[in-house]
């Protein structure tokens, strides 16, 4: 193994994780806005949501990233690869999260809506006490899945020269030709990160179910 490989790859992994984390935070916030739009009473707002999701999910992430990165100068905006990369990841994950949230809300059985309304609860309390716990229960597994997808998606940003784990591995390989070793190590780093997130998600699921947050007792 070429000297310094582990350090460089570890640094790259941390950058990938930070990119994914910012994208997950930003994406979740944007997704909440989008999900609200998805259930708006105005047909135009709902249509805007569907167009957004259609375009973002129908275009490869690489093309979205290249579009943002190379076409932004046309709008006279100054961005480096990191900002463009995080932005595109946020746009991408927001579409995925929004669909997860929307699916979660739609999965709530009708009787729950009706009983909530018959209780005469104000919208905020209804959201807090009934919708949120149920939506969380239904959406936690796909949410964790999208988080894992975000970590994997960050590797695509290497092609627009955002320095993260995949680019770090590529640079080492192009310098030293230790293709198998370095790619194997990079794969191991990704595996640990993604598998770890997956396991954490499952523990969180069990934890929430036990605490009754999911709307039913253990």
């Amino acid at each position, binding site marked *: 193994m070429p*000297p*310094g490989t582990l350090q*460089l790859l570890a640094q790259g992994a941390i950058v990938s994780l930070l990119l994914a984390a910012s994208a997950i935070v930003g994406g979740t916030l944007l997704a909440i806005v989008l999900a609200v739009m998805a259930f708006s009473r105005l047909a135009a707002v709902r*249509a805007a949501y*569907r*167009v957004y999701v*259609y*375009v973002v999910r129908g275009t490869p992430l690489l093309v979205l990233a290249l579009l943002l*990165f*190379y076409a*932004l*100068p*046309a*709008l*006279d*905006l*100054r*961005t*480096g*690869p990191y900002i463009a990369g995080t932005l595109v990841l946020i746009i991408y994950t927001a579409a995925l999260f929004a669909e997860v949230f929307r699916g979660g809300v739609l999965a709530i059985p009708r009787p729950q809506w009706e009983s909530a309304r018959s209780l005469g609860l104000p919208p905020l309390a209804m959201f807090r006490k009934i919708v949120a716990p149920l939506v969380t229960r239904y959406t936690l597994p796909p949410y964790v899945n999208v988080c894992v997808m975000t970590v994997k998606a960050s590797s695509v940003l290497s*092609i*627009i*020269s955002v*320095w993260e784990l995949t680019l770090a591995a*590529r*640079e080492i*390989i*192009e*310098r030293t*030709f230790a*293709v198998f070793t370095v790619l194997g190590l990079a794969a191991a780093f990704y595996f640990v990160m993604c598998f770890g997130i997956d396991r954490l998600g499952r523990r969180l699921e069990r934890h929430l179910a036990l605490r009754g947050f999911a709307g039913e007792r253990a």
Partner: protein
Amino acid sequence: MKVSRVYNVLAAGVVALLLAASVPVGAEEKSRMDVVLERGKLIVVTLTTVPPFAFNDDKGQLVGFDIDIARLVATALFKDPNKVEFVSVSAEGRWPAIESGRADMGVGGTTTYPDRAIRVAFTRPFVDSGISVLVSKKSGIKSLKDLDQEKFTIANLNNPQMADRAKRFFPRTKVLTFDTPSAQFLAVKSGRANALQIDTPAAEYWAAQNKDEMDVLPGLLGASQNNGIFLRTGDFKWWLWLDTAVAEMRTGSWYPQYSEIYHKWFGKNPPPQKFYNPQ
């Protein structure tokens, strides 16, 4: 099926709106020169895999002839060669980095071409270059003419000049296109390609490092060329200063510093300051 047709129309509408909204903004009033002086630091975009112009050494530090020239520019501005920040990109990322204002200037084995000069401005050359072909010894190619056969593959960088040269000099050779010189080199080393075309100093550097496997073919592809510093077009004040700096490095008061850098990376004296004997 009808539903997705509606989406198609809506998506096209959104795109049309985006295009209509992207009216070009007015030009900058402030020169980059003032911005840089105010900032106290120079931001330089560069390729990072073109030895000996700009590359990472074994310790992972960015070094090279172009890097040292950029530091010389910083010394001229701030009396400190460390007041530089380097932004690393792949080949096609150089122009957006300048156009978007992310970087003040760029280096990295970048050759001056008229069609490129439409998008970015170039100073006069700070080093001569040319394009050579590096081949793997295993392929048995001994001359440029040998390369022009269907069974061989050449690795190009993804810029139009390389594509043109390949069409002109080796129309029969198969072409692979990569986004960094080191990817080209990896392609030759791993056997994906039999040859690559790149600036002569880079080809010679790689051949020297891989004496048993690789060779540089004699002759240049086309003419001797100019590598210059590139910067945003339309900024006369900044271009004038950078060009003056390069002029002084090659033919004037900063020639000693320039010579030192030239010697360090090419192991020989730079071209003489003047073509006549200065009194």
